[in-house]
């Protein structure tokens, strides 16, 4: 654990509510023509049961909060023959789903020359061509990841080809795709995020060319999507501040886990709270990707699922994630790669209209994030009211040890995480040192006699069983520490 993340944890975990509130309100004046998250929705959505819309103040576009990500298009059944044009993809189904989306207010379609084996733009183009061009917005990207496409000619060709595949003469939103990611150049030298950005968009003059295309109306909004090294994000925003380039929108990863823990999930990522705040400060609309963190927030542990359902039994697990991603007012649209009609109908329902996540729910989701990430400390302050446990457990000592391990980043979710071996040894040996084996959580029978005594209302047996499960998981890894 580096110090930064530790401090962040301390700050983040404790002041989750406070910072969330600050973030949501701090950029009020610069937000996209609405007052606050809570107020914006009724203003933006035409009527109850209709899709929440957001306004892009650069062009005045009214964009649906749900954006259709065309990167996971439905495929034909295994035994079906490939279509000469659209390959393995089920164009008929794509058309149906696009029709449904448009009929229910979804008007933002996000594709790329790289998606779906290079066929996403074509399939999207075919489906959209059947509708008036003004009824939807197309977002595509300059996905010149391969060093072979870094030349001005090849990159321009890629853009021209996108227009052709999409059967249109302009795109509404064009993104420099995946800025911040490093690469290997044609000679195999490894380039960092910034070097890669320069090689892809600056050295070949492409960004200036894209600006020209915008001036000539072939691109209506110019922006970038960002993954990886935060220096690239910061420098591009600095250019915006300096007036060197103007970003009409920026696409970032945002979900309730990434809000504070992006860096912990993947050391190369940056917390969404920071990214969003930077965009918000500048009034740059944010397009959100990965609202479900690659599906991880749709399939959570039983324990987490139970908590979410208990809070709102009728809402799907995924809907919490969509509501979270859609709540910040500076979010223009939330992209979801909806393969199946069921995904689409469910997400349309979640956003028709959006019920913004309120402050209390935000705190709740931050706790859920902590739990998913394994960072949930138990609010025990060792008052000893629960003691003596009739079965001999030392309840506070167990909680103290567990909390200490969490704070020292010794609780790991998987054996693949760095430092796992040390963390396991420290947790297990420390456990035996802090609590004699006969007084450990494995002996909690769940009689629940302790719970009424707890002034913090900790569900003691539930937490003890949770810790015991974790210990059991560690022990199963081997007979040695």
């Amino acid at each position: 654990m580096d110090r930064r993340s530790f401090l962040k944890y301390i700050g983040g975990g404790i002041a989750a509510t406070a910072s969330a509130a600050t973030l949501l309100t701090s950029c009020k004046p610069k937000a996209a023509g609405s007052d606050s998250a809570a107020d914006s929705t009724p203003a933006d959505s035409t009527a109850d049961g209709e899709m929440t819309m957001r306004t892009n103040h650069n062009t005045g576009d009214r964009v649906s909060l749900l954006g259709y990500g065309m990167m996971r298009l439905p495929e034909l059944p295994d035994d079906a023959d490939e279509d000469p044009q659209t390959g393995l993809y089920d164009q008929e189904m794509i058309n149906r789903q696009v029709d449904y989306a448009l009929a229910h207010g979804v008007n933002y379609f996000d594709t790329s020359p790289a998606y779906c084996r290079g066929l996403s733009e074509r399939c999207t183009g075919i489906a959209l061509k059947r509708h008036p061009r003004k009824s939807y917005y197309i977002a595509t990207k300059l996905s010149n990841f391969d060093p072979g496409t870094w030349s001005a000619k090849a990159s321009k060709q890629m853009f021209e080809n996108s227009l052709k595949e999409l059967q249109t003469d302009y795109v509404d939103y064009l993104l420099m795709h995946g800025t911040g990611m490093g690469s290997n150049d044609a000679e195999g030298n490894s380039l960092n995020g910034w070097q890669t950005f320069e090689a892809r968009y600056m050295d070949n003059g492409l960004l200036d060319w894209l600006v020209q295309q915008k001036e000539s109306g072939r691109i209506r909004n110019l922006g970038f999507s960002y993954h990886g090294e935060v220096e690239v994000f910061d420098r591009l925003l600095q250019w915006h501040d300096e007036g060197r380039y103007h970003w009409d929108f920026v696409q970032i990863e945002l979900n309730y886990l990434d809000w504070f823990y992006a860096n912990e999930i993947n050391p190369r990522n940056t917390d969404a709270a920071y990214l969003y705040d930077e965009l918000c400060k500048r009034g740059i609309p944010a397009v959100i990707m990965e609202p479900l963190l690659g599906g991880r927030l749709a399939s959570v542990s039983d324990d987490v699922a139970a908590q979410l359902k208990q809070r709102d039994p009728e809402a799907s697990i995924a809907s919490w994630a969509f509501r979270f991603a859609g709540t910040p007012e500076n979010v223009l649209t939330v992209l979801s790669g909806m393969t199946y009609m069921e995904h689409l109908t469910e997400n349309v329902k979640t956003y028709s209209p959006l019920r913004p996540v309120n402050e209390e729910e935000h705190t709740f989701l931050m706790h859920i994030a902590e739990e998913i990430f394994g960072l949930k400390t138990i609010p025990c302050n060792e008052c000893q009211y629960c003691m003596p446990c009739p079965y001999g457990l030392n309840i506070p000592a167990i909680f103290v040890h567990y909390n200490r391990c969490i704070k020292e980043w010794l609780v790991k979710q998987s054996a693949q995480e760095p430092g796992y071996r040390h963390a396991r040894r420290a947790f297990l040996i420390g456990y035996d040192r802090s609590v004699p084996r006969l007084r450990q959580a494995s002996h909690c029978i769940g009689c629940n006699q302790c719970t009424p005594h707890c002034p913090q209302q900790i569900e003691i047996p539930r937490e003890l069983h949770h810790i015991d499960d974790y210990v059991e998981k560690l022990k199963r890894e081997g007979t040695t520490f």
Partner: protein
Amino acid sequence: MKQDNRKAADAPRHTPPLRRIRIALASVCFLLLTWLFLDFTGTAQPLAGWLAKIQFLPAVMALNLWVVAGLVVLTLIFGRIYCSVICPLGVLQDLLARLRPRGHKKVGRYSYSPEVRWLRYPVLVLFVIALVAGVGSFVALLAPYSSFGRIASNLFAPLYQWGNNGLAAIAEQQGSYAFYHVDVWMRSLPTFLIAAASLAVLAILAWVGGRTYCNTICPVGTVLSFLSRFSFLKIRFDADKCRNCSACSKSCKASCIDYKNHAVDYSRCVVCGNCLESCKFGALHYAPAFSSQTAGSPSAAKGISHPADAPTNTIEAPSGAVEGATPIPSGATPSPSRRAFLIGSGLAIGTAALAQTKKKVDGGLATIEDKAAPERQTPLTPPGSLSAKNMAQHCTGCQLCVAQCPNQVLRPSTGLLTLMQPTMSFEHGYCRPECTRCSEVCPAGAIRPIQKDEKSSIQIGHAVWVKKNCIPVTDGIDCGNCARHCPTGAIQMVPLDPDNELGAYVPAVNESRCIGCGACENLCPARPFSAIYVEGHEVHREV
């Protein structure tokens, strides 16, 4: 003195530093093997585990033919070098002899004595009978490696563990995880006493007569002696050079050099090389049979000719004795433990209520009574041991599995026939699913190697519910700790009264799924007797 040295140096044949090589090799083997018995972390096994597996008797028991053949060839070439290098008990005796109390002469205190045949061969015969009859206790008592294991795990290991615990206490103060505390407890009093007695007897024998144990009692030594008589390399006299000074006989811890007759009893010589160094006249050599300097060999050959015939008769011992031996203990054993059980179960009725201490004030810790072992009609043997029979037939009682068990489940049996062989009980821990340590270390084929995933399907016993101890029944408190921890999901909680779903829920064991790991028994809150315990299976099954 100087003159003598020069004479030795002038000797025509260069004497190889046999003694020093032997000491070096023996030290390595002994230290590694001792570490194997002391280590509780599992680090020693990959490095030293093989040393247990090349021990003669375990290799025979495991039908490890390559090892047995290797040892036979080794002995046929070098003589009983096994007893000087590989056998930890042999090396231990050398160590004990060195540690002889002060005031006694350390060097040159031995003398030649004839072979004690009346003891040596009958012991071997009895040993073989015991082996065939499956009287493991007798086998474990005499087998040299087993004796060593018993001594190391009962007498040395506690010292090692206390030392470790001292370091662990320091580490804890320093916030380090380099060492961790282990519980030091006596697995079995009889085995401990036998170990202590074995060590005492060995020490006395070693102080008085060097390798008396190896050459009069040890059955492995006797078996190897049949081969060592014909070994290619032997200690040989050069009668021309010998001045009959007796230095060799005095230095011979096996008492096998008859300097007067220039004869060596090769059945007892453990090729330690001490005599070679003691001889100042270059009259002794460790040399092949065809060597020219074998003046003393005819008489030596005569010395061995008689006993060489003996073993062929003794090995095929009459099996009639077997039946006589077996039934002795069966009637006697259960009574004390049954009595304990009856007393215990009386207590248990009381303790179910005592299991929970009433909460009157805030803070403090409830006292926890120790668990007591239930009486199991069939003792439990660890997964991989196949059956009680397989265990009885192969186990040499070396205690390696007991010493290595990280969950403190294994302990030496106290049954007369299976004395010192491992059995399981769950008062201190249970047989955890990730652990296959005993099956990895067993050198004798008593516990066959198993994989972790295999283990979860080996049924060594099944759980039995004891209603009168069960807390939901006695105290009306919800529990289910057994069901929560069952690794195979063999326990579910069902209403005690089928018509009252709101009443007490008690465990229902699906015996066909239960593997007998003891998690339920160990984690049951009822004390001292658990409300659910594991009953062993004579033959293990697959579930």
